[in-house]
């Protein structure tokens, strides 16, 4: 039986407790976020986190690992990721050396006997290279497994995850099935560049992190940027909410609004005005056409 250490963890005894714990490590969760994390820990389910870039998906996993003081194991996905990089690999080099060493030393011993011994020898723990997924399974303590940007993985490779996510076990043909001792808390993040398979989605709780509501964004700004006065913060939040309501190629996300706020403070700007916005807008918007649209719609300093 697999132990679920998360269920009894003192910091997962209620939605409010989770929310407060997240706050202590500097992550301000929305209600939905805290609820989903709480449920994931209670039901031993992975969380699939989706949302636009820069809204704090990866940060969430880090924050949870942070306040629970668990090890964070990260698997960054990319096109061409395969079993040997995600799960485990045999250390061929070491195996090769081992065989050579044997051959040199035990030349006179009967070949047959030697080979069966070697066969057993070179497929054991000593020659197994652990990759993130196996590492998370074999971890003695409760750990947080972050599978970042699952949508970059090819559809075929996605199947790799299925056994781990539902049964928390890995099958290594030479060693048999390795079952987790303590359940890892799994976060999968996705930018939604492609649809994940139904099988994968079905196994997870789903959490969509959108751009934050103005109130939450205000909270985040004030918490993360020391020395920000509330009047400016309100203006910033209102302005950014306005930008997001426009039809932009890339709406500003939290990380960008934080950058912008810090920049404004560095420049000693106390209130937003038509004159100060256009010069700094490129910190917030990453396309020229977006910057133009932002200036046109939200300030009155256009040339017309």
């Amino acid at each position: 039986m697999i132990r679920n250490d998360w269920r009894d963890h003192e910091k997962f005894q209620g939605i409010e407790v989770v929310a407060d714990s997240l706050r202590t490590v500097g992550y301000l969760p929305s209600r939905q976020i805290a609820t989903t994390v709480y449920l994931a820990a209670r039901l031993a389910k992975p969380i699939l986190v989706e949302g636009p870039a820069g809204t704090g998906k990866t940060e969430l996993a880090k924050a949870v690992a942070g306040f629970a003081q668990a090890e964070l194991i990260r698997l960054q996905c990319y096109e061409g990721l395969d079993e040997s990089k995600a799960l485990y690999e045999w250390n061929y080099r070491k195996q090769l050396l081992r065989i050579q060493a044997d051959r040199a030393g035990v030349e006179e011993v009967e070949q047959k006997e030697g080979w069966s011994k070697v066969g057993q020898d070179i497929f054991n723990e000593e020659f197994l290279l652990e990759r993130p997924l196996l590492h998370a399974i074999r971890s003695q303590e409760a750990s947080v497994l972050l599978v970042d940007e699952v949508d970059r993985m090819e559809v075929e490779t996605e199947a790799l995850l299925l056994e781990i996510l539902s049964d928390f076990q890995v099958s290594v043909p030479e060693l048999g099935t390795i079952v987790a001792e303590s359940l890892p808390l799994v976060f999968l993040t996705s930018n939604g560049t492609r649809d994940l398979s139904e099988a994968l989605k079905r196994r997870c709780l789903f959490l969509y992190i959108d751009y934050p509501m103005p109130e939450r964004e205000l909270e985040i700004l004030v918490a993360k940027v020391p020395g920000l006065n509330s009047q400016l913060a309100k203006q910033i939040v209102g302005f950014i909410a306005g930008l997001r309501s426009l039809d932009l190629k890339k709406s500003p996300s939290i990380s960008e609004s934080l950058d912008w706020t810090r920049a404004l403070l560095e420049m000693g700007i106390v209130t937003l005005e038509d004159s100060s916005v256009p010069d700094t807008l490129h910190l917030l918007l990453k396309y020229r056409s977006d910057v133009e649209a932002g200036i046109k719609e939200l300030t009155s300093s256009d040339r017309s």
Partner: protein
Amino acid sequence: MLELLVGFATALRASGISCSQSELIDASQILGEIDFLDRDELRDSLRSAMVKDPLHIEAFDRLFDVFFSLRSFDSAGSDDDTEGGKEGDYQNDVDLTDLLAKALLQNDREKLSRYVRQAVSRFGGIEKGRAVSGLYYAYRTLRQIDLDRLLLLLEADLDLESGSDFDRKLHKLDAKRLIDSLKAQVTKEVTELLVEDRGPVAVAKTLAVTLPEDIEIVRASREELARMQRTVEPLARKLAARLAQKHRSQNRGQVDMRKTMRASLSYGGTPVELVTKPPRPHKPEIFLIADVSGSVASFSRFTMQLVFAMSSQFSKVRSFAFIDEVDEVTSYFNSAKDINEAMRLVNTKAKVVWLDGHSDYGRCLESFWERYHSDLTRRSSVIICGDARNNYHSAKAEVLKLVKGASKHLFWLNPEPHAYWNSGDSVISSYAEYCDGVYEVRSLRHLERFITEAI
């Protein structure tokens, strides 16, 4: 509670959200972990277990309101003034608008819901037992509240704090947001009243919640089209990715001798690992040819959305528009900031009308071939969007054969239901002969099917 949950899952499925058995089991397990009398908590929890697609969240929320409204039944007081308050209490109406404004500004949810309840009972004029979706009641209530005046009130109040031009612009946006939240609140209130009256299952049926991907493009309202735009973008990306992917999976890549030699060194010179060259990123060349005539107006708006989304993602998308003359419109899409501007440019600048502005597929295909055939290569995919209603001009389908011969794929997307094909002046079958496939694309779901099946 469990029964309610199962009914809820059934309603979700009816609206197109796939909610599998195991997800339902998860949801029921969740009930044991939370305080399900807290509605927000319940909503957040169920949402994480039952919805796996961000586009479905809105539909989920609406149905959730229908099934799990924990409405107290003490609305006896408000029943008195349902009628009678129509003419006599004009003064009273004004007060209500003021009160609503105040509640919105203070973000006082309790007060807001109380005033909204009053407004609905006074203005909505809900008739019990009628099988309607309630949209009309919500509309009637909102009209009586006088949203324009409310907007002014809100703006004026927000402006009180500080008055620079810049702030004023922001306040306008704030006020709009508040109004939207009021609208949502009113709809919710009306729905709750209906549920009280007829039960959740019946109301869910009349609500007929449609997911964005199921909206029929040809019949979609402007608002719906705008909503669909968000969905089109990922689809466009997917379409282009598909066109590229096919290529990659056929070709595993050449052996990189240098790297293979290097890797063999760690095995004593035996080439154990074969290193291949990374595949060259394939750039799909897409030619989109869209009918922009009046008969497919909202469909062409949709194809334009698709074009716009694709051209912002990929450089090698060329788009063409036609009615009875074809013209390249790629540059309009690249320079335009948003879809509306692009549409305007196409309508005003592109030369798509030759004679009378009635679609002439034959002529347009011919002139497309004449002018652009040298640009077609074995890597180009040609996608034609239109209903193939040719106004009895000659079809000239043989041109399509040439196009097919010069390109990798040739697809036709038809916005008409399959049953109407070849009726009247539709000549789709004569074109279909030369296409790799003709697809009925009436909604985003169809488009998605086209993407996954065809390519």
